[in-house]
């Protein structure tokens, strides 16, 4: 999430009732990823990304600092 106003936190809670009319039944056939695979992906991915993300952020801040000096 690209947060623009972290200090002015406000979320407008919108409770909107679902439409009263029912949709026509649609037969769906699909497969789901196994829960353990889903869990493994979210954990493995974030582990790998942490260092790179931090480095990217540092590089970005570094560029800003360089521009500031020039």
């Amino acid at each position, binding site marked *: *999430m*690209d*947060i*623009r*106003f*972290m200090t*002015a*936190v*406000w*979320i*407008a*809670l*919108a*409770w*909107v009732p*679902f*439409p009263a009319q*029912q*949709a026509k039944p*649609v037969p*769906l*056939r*699909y*497969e*789901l*990823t196994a*829960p353990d*695979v*889903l*869990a493994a*992906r*979210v*954990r*493995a*991915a*974030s582990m790998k*990304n*942490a260092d*790179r*993300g*931090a480095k*990217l*952020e*540092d*590089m*970005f801040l570094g560029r800003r600092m360089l521009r500031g000096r020039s």
Partner: protein
Amino acid sequence: MKTCFSDAGCSAGDLELQPVKHANVPNIICTVRGATESVILVGAHFDHVAHGLGVIDNWTGASLLPSLAETVRSLNRRHTFVFVGFTDEERGLVGSYFYVSQLDGEALSRIVAMINFDSVGAGPTEVEHSTGDANLLQKLGNVAGSTKLPLTFMDADQVGTSDFLAFRSKGVPTLLFHSLTQETLKLLHRSADNYQALKMDDYRDTYRLAAAFLAYLDVTLDVRPRLGSDSPPPTLKRP
């Protein structure tokens, strides 16, 4: 992320790294072709700020894409599904705006929906109502009702935005999944954004709802336009 896509069956020919101007890391694109060129695009950013591990914002969203690609591959698809891991969202939606800028008018017109995942898994599934396309919101409501999976509408557009904006600005119908409330918003961009913040049961429910939703969209959204299967896949403008 590329490895996750490969593990999910996205073969080399359907996996593309898109270099992005002013970004050190490319967008990662997995295309699951359908019977037509009509595109349902599913996106999530995979970068994060230095504070915290970025588990909620947004590896939960990014790592959902390969699993959703697996689900979509099991469908007898009418639409082509394009899954995009966007780079540098936290620096101002850099990857998504670049992606959109590389689409020609025809390619853009073929995208019938853009479904965005950002900061899911910190709680039950939320979807942004204020920026969401009315037709997509109604369809999602139908799916949530049928599957009896939790869903509430929560607007967070006053505090931030996400990659869907690049597509919405071009007239593409969009929908943003998240899990932000007054409480979970405090996790973002802070050291608290770590594994302890991940609510696995809620995350699993979000996946199940999103999977059913994509299957439902494939059946119920009109294809745009209806073309023969010999036509070329959705294209990016090449330099």
